[in-house]
């Protein structure tokens, strides 16, 4: 039965990347139940597109589908008004008020503080950091997932790190 063989091949090659898929969905939707729904939908989409998969990086291919499913979901489910309007140019301005934290301060950041700070980042910055630091993806892979150029990956990562550092500095400064 070719359908069954196809499903088995899919389960063997794609499902090993389920952890990465759920993790990305979890970070983008910021909610476990939504992340589960999105991951499931993305996996079924991937299964339908599976014949179109031309080889190459399976994880990046799957995560690109997860990412698209997430953004479709976010677009449909974010309450009007709360929609995260984001303009890279406007938002790229450096923070002026908060201080750049010391290395020791960064090193003391615990998991909850890090998670909170990451959650507050705009989606496009959060996703590059998740892909880079948690999934350990190369710029090329990230570019494939987010369908942007290598240069954009680098500049987004740079900005994401700067923003995260500042918000961590503010959070940890308040605590101490």
């Amino acid at each position: 039965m070719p359908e069954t063989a196809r499903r088995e091949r899919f389960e063997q090659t794609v499902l090993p990347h389920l952890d990465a898929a759920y993790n990305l969905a979890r970070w983008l939707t910021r909610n476990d139940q939504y992340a589960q729904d999105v991951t499931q939908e993305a996996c079924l989409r991937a299964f339908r597109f599976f014949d179109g998969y031309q080889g190459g990086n399976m994880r990046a291919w799957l995560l690109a589908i997860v990412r698209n499913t997430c953004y479709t979901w976010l677009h449909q489910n974010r309450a009007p008004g709360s929609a995260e309007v984001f303009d890279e140019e406007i938002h790229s301005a450096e923070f002026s008020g908060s201080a750049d934290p010391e290395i020791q301060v960064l090193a003391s950041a615990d998991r909850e503080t890090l998670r909170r700070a990451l959650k507050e980042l705009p989606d496009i910055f959060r996703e590059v950091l998740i892909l880079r630091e948690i999934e350990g993806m190369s710029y090329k892979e990230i570019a494939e997932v987010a369908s942007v150029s290598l240069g954009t990956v680098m500049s987004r990562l740079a900005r994401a790190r700067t923003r995260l550092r500042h918000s961590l500095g503010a959070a940890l400064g308040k605590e101490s």
Partner: protein
Amino acid sequence: MSCELTQRFVPGYLDGELDLVCTIEMETHLKSCAACARELENQKALRDALRRGSLAYATPTALRDRIQSSLRASTGTKAFEPARAWYPLQIWRWAAAFAVLAVCGVTAWQLVPGLHAPSSNQRIAAEVFASHVRSLEANHLMDVASTDQHTVKPWFDGKLDFSPPVEDVATEGYPLVGGRLDYLEGREVAALVYQRRKHFINVFVWPDPGGVSAARAIESSRGYNLMRWSQGGFQFWAATDASAPDLADFVRLLESRISPEKK
């Protein structure tokens, strides 16, 4: 390389994503510029904090199961429904999955009576024969080497879900030499190894509740002899390259030692 450029390239440098020329220029610049070196250290500290933080969310087990069953259910389905529309349909998918399981169950049930039929004996005989040959060829005759039945029997505890009867018939010329785990009939079985002069006898044992049948020889092939019998809640298969009369004698001895009470 100016500091402005350096600032832009620090992330790429940190991530090992710069080409060779850029990397060398960065290294030269970093040696002479404290501000850029500090920037790099700062980004490194942030990266380390993120990596150390175990920030990945673990996939719920239920999700994996859900995806697998929806994949199974959708096999053959071309139309795409968005996630929220699946739930009412899922009842039908579960019903379909259940029907498939039921059919498999009935098929399996119909096969069960066949387990004691001659055809299954032939299948087991082939497996026993292969296992015996493999144990000699692969130099993997024993997992536990001991002539003491009180060493061999406890060795199986915890490795099997049953405790095979281990008898000592050394005085009759069939010393026990050891035991090992083997795999027959889709389950783990005990293999007891006895010796008859220069020949080894593999005795495969696994539970056969209520099974009672006298020992009989199973068609021998390529100079090997096989015998099987059931007693005391176990099924026994003996394979050897010793002579057929020797094997029959050995089996008779074992049979007389294993009383039905010993389970």
